[in-house]
């Protein structure tokens, strides 16, 4: 009844019907080239929702369809570019990624579902982008790749794509992962910027509502790097920074402690969802 009233008011005033409207996530199932994708599953203990939902369920039919077919997915161009980089010699040691890790389909399977991981050397969580840099500088005699520079998104997408369909699962028992999770939770719930919004304001409290014409999802990260219809292949920290910019706040640096903690916590919030990299979103 409440929805009916809201809709009635919107019609009567001639305002966009999006004001205050709620649209449920769709009842639809995703399979990518025969691989079943979990887009809806029971939330882990301590989660604010009963069910975790992939952002795929919040998109329009045309966008959902592009995700189903790995050929039609423009993000797969980047995955193929990532494969080329994987086999390209970089640095003074004359090594490519493949020199040590051979076939990514075997060696990288599961990586995209289990990062960030604890890195004992730096005493911090490490994500795929930073792990690539660690290999480049410590094993390959190459320079670290700057944020979003020189194929970082492509190589990350290629590595994460090897876990397509595998459920996201972090090991919080390693090192100090639990305390980074706690720190990430603080970041998630901290209101920030001129709009005074926390991540939770949109992706928890207002999840399912419309923000102008945008259908607010749970803000899951199981499909990053993601191909956005708006801007092409988009890395996770790029998306974090974009969201934070939109709250009119100062943006933390990519791979800063705040964003690494946030990545750890938000990845956990998607526990059990399949890796969808490269997902297609609006």
């Amino acid at each position, binding site marked *: 009844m409440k929805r009916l009233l809201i809709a009635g008011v919107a019609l009567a005033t001639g305002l966009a019907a999006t004001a205050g409207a709620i649209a449920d996530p769709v009842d639809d199932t995703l399979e990518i080239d025969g691989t079943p994708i979990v887009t809806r599953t029971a939330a882990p203990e301590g989660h604010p929702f009963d069910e975790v939902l992939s952002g795929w369920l919040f998109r329009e039919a045309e966008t959902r369809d592009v995700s189903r077919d790995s050929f039609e997915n423009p993000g797969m161009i980047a995955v193929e570019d990532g494969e080329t980089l994987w086999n390209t010699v970089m640095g003074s040691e004359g090594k490519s990624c493949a020199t040590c890790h051979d076939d990514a389909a075997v060696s990288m399977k599961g990586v995209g579902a289990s990062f960030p991981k604890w890195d004992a050397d730096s005493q911090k969580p490490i994500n795929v982008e930073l792990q690539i840099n660690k290999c480049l500088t410590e094993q390959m005699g190459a320079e670290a790749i700057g944020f979003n520079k020189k194929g970082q998104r492509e190589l990350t997408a290629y590595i994460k794509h090897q876990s397509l369909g595998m459920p996201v699962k972090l090991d919080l028992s390693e090192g100090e992962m639990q305390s980074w999770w706690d720190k990430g939770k603080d970041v998630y719930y901290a209101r920030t910027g001129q709009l005074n919004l926390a991540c939770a304001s949109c992706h928890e409290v207002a999840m399912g509502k419309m923000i102008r014409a945008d259908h607010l999802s749970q803000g899951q990260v199981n499909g990053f790097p993601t191909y956005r219809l*708006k801007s092409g292949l988009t890395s996770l920290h790029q998306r974090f920074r974009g969201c934070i910019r939109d709250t009119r706040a100062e943006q933390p640096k990519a791979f800063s402690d705040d964003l690494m903690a946030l990545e750890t916590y938000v990845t956990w919030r998607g526990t059990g969802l399949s890796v969808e990299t490269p997902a297609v979103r609006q």
Partner: protein
Amino acid sequence: MKLTRRNVLGLSVGAAAFTIAGIQARPASAATEATQKSIMDFTGGAEPAAGKVSLTAPEIAENGNTVPVTVSVDSAMEGDDLVASIVVFADGNPNPAVATFHFSEMSGAALATTRIRLAKTQDVIAVAKMKDGSVFMDKKQVKVTIGGCGG
């Protein structure tokens, strides 16, 4: 009727279209001058008839940068029943031209899908030219949405 967002939007669009028709009484084929001129260039001056060609596009595009569209004509693509080409216009873009598809007997079917850019909510127009020179047109309004706080 179950009032979903889409239904509500549909109602609003219906109401808006009714209002516009009531005030301005534009003919069904109305297009901007630039589009109209391009259509005439393509048809050689003939006014396209409705029917035969169909244009499929989403009612609401999630982002105007990448909007899937399909054009098709129900044709045997043999002998005299052959579609020569289909042109697509985006009537509300700074430059309405989008693409021209050329077919042959080896096409097997007069069908093409691509992804296009739409600057705002507008009509997308397809005009098909048959081998015998007859021309047909279809048109769909696509609503281009504005994203969240970032736009």
